[in-house]
């Protein structure tokens, strides 16, 4: 056996250990969840509501924040401005903060005494213990994923294409919507999925803002605390399965564009 192949074997063994580390607990959880127990959990209204709440709130948060995150990403990719590195650091801050600390910070901002909380309560909305507060907590910790992925996507669009479009008479906004955005779309979609996934799995920040209504991670935690591992397990399995289905659906949607291009090529060749 050559030295090179021994080295390859070592890499494969190490890689397998890491994969096993990820898969073993998940597989164990699935194995230890009995079919009857699982069916009972699926039928549980409380579980259904919390999974549904988690999904739609995270999706809504992602959609809502994308409206500002995508333009910010373009600015970061294309423009030079003072303190750009500081801005980039601020964007990454939620990723490194302890999420409960992020929740505390956010609570000060959205509680009735806080700036945003006051503004919301003036229109009769209490953000604490409300889906909109949950959305803010989810977005706070997950929006960096969208901004960074979209920024990389815009940066990968050759600037020359944007310049060519300007030279052909297109306005700046037309260039953004017809050149930059479509060409960065795959990265933006990836960022979108990442933000959605990260928001959906958030516990620390959300639990500070809203214990109720209960999102799935809070519900799982509550069941574990109140009834133990066996009772928390089926809800976890159900949540994981629903989340996986959602990801696969989103991935399919985002890869459809590429497939379409490939099909056109194949037809015309």
């Amino acid at each position, binding site marked *: 056996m050559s030295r090179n192949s021994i080295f390859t074997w070592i890499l494969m063994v190490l890689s397998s250990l890491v994969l096993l580390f990820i898969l073993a607990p998940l597989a164990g959880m699935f194995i230890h969840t009995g079919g009857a127990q699982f069916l009972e959990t699926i039928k549980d209204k409380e579980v259904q509501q919390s999974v549904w709440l988690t999904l739609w709130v995270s999706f809504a948060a992602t959609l809502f924040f994308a409206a500002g995150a995508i333009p910010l990403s373009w600015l970061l990719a294309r423009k030079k401005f003072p303190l750009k590195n500081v801005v980039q650091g601020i964007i990454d801050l939620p990723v490194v903060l302890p999420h409960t600390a992020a929740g505390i910070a956010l609570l000060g901002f959205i509680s009735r005494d806080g700036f945003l909380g006051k503004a919301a309560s003036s229109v009769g909305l209490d953000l604490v213990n409300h889906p909109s507060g949950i959305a803010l907590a989810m977005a706070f910790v997950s929006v960096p994923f969208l901004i960074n992925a979209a920024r990389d996507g815009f940066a990968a669009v050759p600037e*020359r294409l944007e*310049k060519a*479009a300007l030279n052909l*008479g*297109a306005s700046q906004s037309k260039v953004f919507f017809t050149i930059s955005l479509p060409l960065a779309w795959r990265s933006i979609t990836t960022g979108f999925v990442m933000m959605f996934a990260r928001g959906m799995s958030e516990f620390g920040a959300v639990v500070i803002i809203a214990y109720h209504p209960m999102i799935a991670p809070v519900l799982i935690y509550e069941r574990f605390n109140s009834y133990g591992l066996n009772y928390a397990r089926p809800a976890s399995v159900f949540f994981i399965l629903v989340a996986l289905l959602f990801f696969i659906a989103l991935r399919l949607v985002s890869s459809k564009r590429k497939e379409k291009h490939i099909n056109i090529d194949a037809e015309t060749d």
Partner: protein
Amino acid sequence: MLKLTDINRKLGDFALTDINLEIPEGQYYVLLGRSGSGKTQLLELIAGLEYPDSGTIMLDNEDITRRRIQDRKVGIVFQDYAVFPHMTVFGNIAYPLKARKEDKKSIAEKVEKAATAMNIKHILERNTEKLSGGELQRVALARTLITSPRLLLLDEPLSSLDASLKDDMKRLLRNLNKAGQTIIHVTHDYNDAISLAKRVGVIHNGRIIQEGSVDEVFKNPSNRFVARYAGIRNFFRVEITREKGILSGITKHNVMFKLEGENRGKDGLLIIKSDSIVLTKEMPEDTGHNIIKGKITEIIPSEFGMEITLDAGDLFYVNILTPVFEKLRFVEEEEVWMSFPSKAIVALKGTV
């Protein structure tokens, strides 16, 4: 038509310096320069992709120095074509018309006309990702020409085409120019310049160092850099002396050249065209020519025959045609004689 006055632009360590250029309507102007000479940057200033630090750009007597790219009516075709990869050929060519919000019928008619002119009508519905270099070039050109630019800027349009496509494209560009399109074409290729240009500018280190008709520039290169472009490799720095009425130049390796004309200074840079030198095995008769003995150090095939390198103290490069080479059968290490008339020696005005 286009007039650049005292244009300066600093880009990091590099700077475009004191660019003055006047290009009349209908001109085919080739800007010749090596990569990194500043030729693309100059095109980008004219197109409005960048702005100069100082100086003015006038187009048809209008100051466009600070005008937005969209409003200049200067079309540019980039070296890498910059064809939009997520659109079909039709989408690319129609792009400027859609930007102008023209109606669908007019767009379809104009795109078809432009595609027919560029011979790409058959690929209009194709995605651009799998097009050949030549097809991409035509798409980029059609897309730019459909805007009816007052001035067409071409950045190395022939550099990535193979020989037959190059000829087609040259013909197309020549016809465009004949139809009245003013063109500025930047290239590093001397052959592009001589086959297309009505006027040539040579740019080096951000400065236009010589300008004129093709003949003017290449028959009387103003310096070593321009001479290199004309394929001249025999350069000699000499000390010029006049003794007993004979003007001569001596290199530091004691190679002596008989010169014609007036003594212009103490030092000079001489060039001798490679095909002006005749090689013989025996010492030629003295006809007043320069006669120099040298040893052949290398023989390599060239386009029309052989390029022979000789060491005569200084290195000389001599081109000989295949029939001559086959007759004389020179070999490496052989000692031979070079002869060339004094009028084959050109003294450069300056040095680079």
